[in-house]
């Protein structure tokens, strides 16, 4: 029998996010988009694009340059019946809105003894690699993941970008979506229509026997590249896309660590006190620790702000050669 080969529809990561918002705006009148220059401008990274033409300025709302106030309006709106999707122009600017995110959105349900919910979605264009330097390149997902009451996800493919955004909208609690700016143009297959990618689940992007690399955000792609290069050395790496920082998919990570006995964690955010530390501790505190043949390796951002010079900028975050050499050491037990 001849298999019918359907052309797989490809979208960019930004287009996939836009399609998710389009679907959400279309199916639920409570959904509103809010953010700076997300209307006719289309968003600083063209994620909202032309949605304003389809849905109008009442549903695709340009806010003033007021991150604290804008975030608070989104919190209040979520509390009282709307389903806002709030875009920070750059994730760095969330530092101006921490009050509303951390003190209000995250805590209102708990402080009020469960009497309310804050079904709020926030989007954070994050990460380095654009030459925008220290105040436009940070990876602050661990900051927010430290706060009970928030959920934090980091999609790494167009398919997951759409699926996690739609899952976030279905979620009754505040969900923070960290989108790596370098991924916006990346293309990949994206299913048509409405679907969700469950929050709290990691994805095994490559199965392997010799070692486990847990990566988040753009590092998933670097880890996969390193894993392909390792094949030449006869090293078979398993690559896990963390995907959800809070809640974290403990079972998938521990299961893989038990299987391979060697664990490396890679993220772009600063290494010290980062997500890698949490994952290492999680493994060390569990029975999976007994399965480890070698100490855990963490790779993360350098102990500095993101610099401007392109070579320095690369040096400030993990790159494929660094992942590769760390993996070789790990595979040989030479850590």
């Amino acid at each position, binding site marked *: 029998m001849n298999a019918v080969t359907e052309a797989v529809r490809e979208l960019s990561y930004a287009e996939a996010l836009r399609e998710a918002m389009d679907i959400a705006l279309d199916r639920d009148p409570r959904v509103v988009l809010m953010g700076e220059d997300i209307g006719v401008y289309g968003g600083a990274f063209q994620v909202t694009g032309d949605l304003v033409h389809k849905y109008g300025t009442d549903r695709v709302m340009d806010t003033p340059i007021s991150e604290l106030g804008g975030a608070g309006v989104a919190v209040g709106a979520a509390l009282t019946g709307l389903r806002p999707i709030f875009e920070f122009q750059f994730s760095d600017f969330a530092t101006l809105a921490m009050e509303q995110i951390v*003190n209000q959105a995250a805590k209102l349900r708990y402080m009020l003894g469960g009497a309310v919910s804050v079904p709020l979605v926030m989007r954070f264009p994050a990460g380095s690699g654009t030459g925008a330097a220290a105040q436009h390149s940070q990876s602050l997902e661990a900051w927010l993941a430290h706060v*009970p009451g928030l959920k934090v996800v980091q999609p790494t493919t167009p398919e997951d970008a759409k699926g996690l955004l739609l899952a976030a909208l279905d979620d009754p609690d505040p969900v923070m979506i960290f989108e790596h700016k370098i991924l916006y143009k990346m293309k990949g297959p994206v299913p048509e229509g409405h679907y969700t990618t469950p929050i709290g689940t990691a994805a095994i992007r490559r199965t392997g026997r010799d070692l486990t690399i847990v990566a988040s955000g753009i590092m998933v792609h670097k880890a996969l590249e390193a894993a392909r290069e390792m094949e030449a050395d006869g090293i078979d790496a398993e690559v896990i896309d963390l995907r959800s920082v809070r809640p974290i998919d403990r079972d998938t990570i521990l299961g893989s660590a038990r299987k391979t006995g060697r664990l490396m964690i890679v993220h772009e955010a600063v290494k010290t006190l980062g997500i890698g530390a949490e994952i290492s501790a999680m493994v060390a505190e569990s029975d999976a620790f007994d399965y480890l043949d070698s100490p855990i390796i963490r790779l993360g951002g350098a102990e500095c702000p993101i610099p401007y010079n392109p070579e320095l900028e690369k040096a400030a975050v993990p790159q494929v050669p660094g992942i590769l050499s760390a993996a070789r050491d790990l595979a040989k037990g030479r850590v």
Partner: protein
Amino acid sequence: MPDGYRDGNLPYAIRAYDADTLRAALRKMYLIRKFEEGAENSYTRGLIHGTMHLSIGQEASAVASCMALSDDDKITSTHRGHGHCVAKGADLGRMFAEFFGKETGYCRGRGGSMHIADPTKGNLGANGIVGGGLPIAVGAALSAKRLGTGAVTVCFFGDGANNEGAFHEALNMAAVWKLPVVFVCENNKYGMSTSTERSTAVKNIAERAAAYAMPGVTVDGNDFSAVAEAVDAAVARARAGDGPSLVENVTYRWRGHSKSDRNRYRTKEEIADWMARDPIPAFARLLVDHGVLTDADVADIEAETEQVIADAIAFAADSADPDPADVARDVYNPAAA
């Protein structure tokens, strides 16, 4: 009716409300006063831990600002929010239970005085962050406008909050989007120890409304009728779709800022002056003078509220504590997929 009043000259409250409504308003003012005295007393007896911020002396502002609101209308409140909560119709037993940290409290003992809320009556909650409620109120007004509910949000905040960025961002957005929200500043002259003179560049906070192209008025916050007149007009304007307003109720807190206050920043004379302008007997006098109530009615109302408070405290004291095993409950909504 006293001499000198002709119908058109009657105080607003007398013109605008019937006797039952006025009686209920006076009763709420007594309830707030006695609730806070009861809370203070319970604190002294060790039944309440943490701290609290009493609004004794500010009761007219809380009650008069909520006169035009139904349970569908929202308020956002502040750390000094007991009065707002009572004014919006909360049950005093559940309020005391919250203060006592009990499972029957409004927040099941997780919030305490600084987070007291009653969403079923439209009270979206007190706030531990100065200025925290301002953008949230604007968000509630945005919901009302988009969902066409017709609800108005009254946003309470203090004079201290008007120097937070959140105040300016919130007023600007409310004006740009013409949202149904009324900003009610309870100017009690101080943010902790710092007077408005030392902290605020304008003389009256209502002047700041001009920067956001909305009406701003300053009224005597201890004059029930004056507050009701100003806020009712602002609520009507909001309901008509004409956008936000700022009303500044000038008032005074008799007690210290919180339990840690040593009162080093104001004089005894100043406090005594303001205590002589107690808003509750002033309102009672107004009602008696206009034949709404008799002195005996007023005495009955006051006595009845004392019984309500005693019952509320008993309810709270008899209620169960939360189970420590539930400490992490209600962080997330269990309805999540």
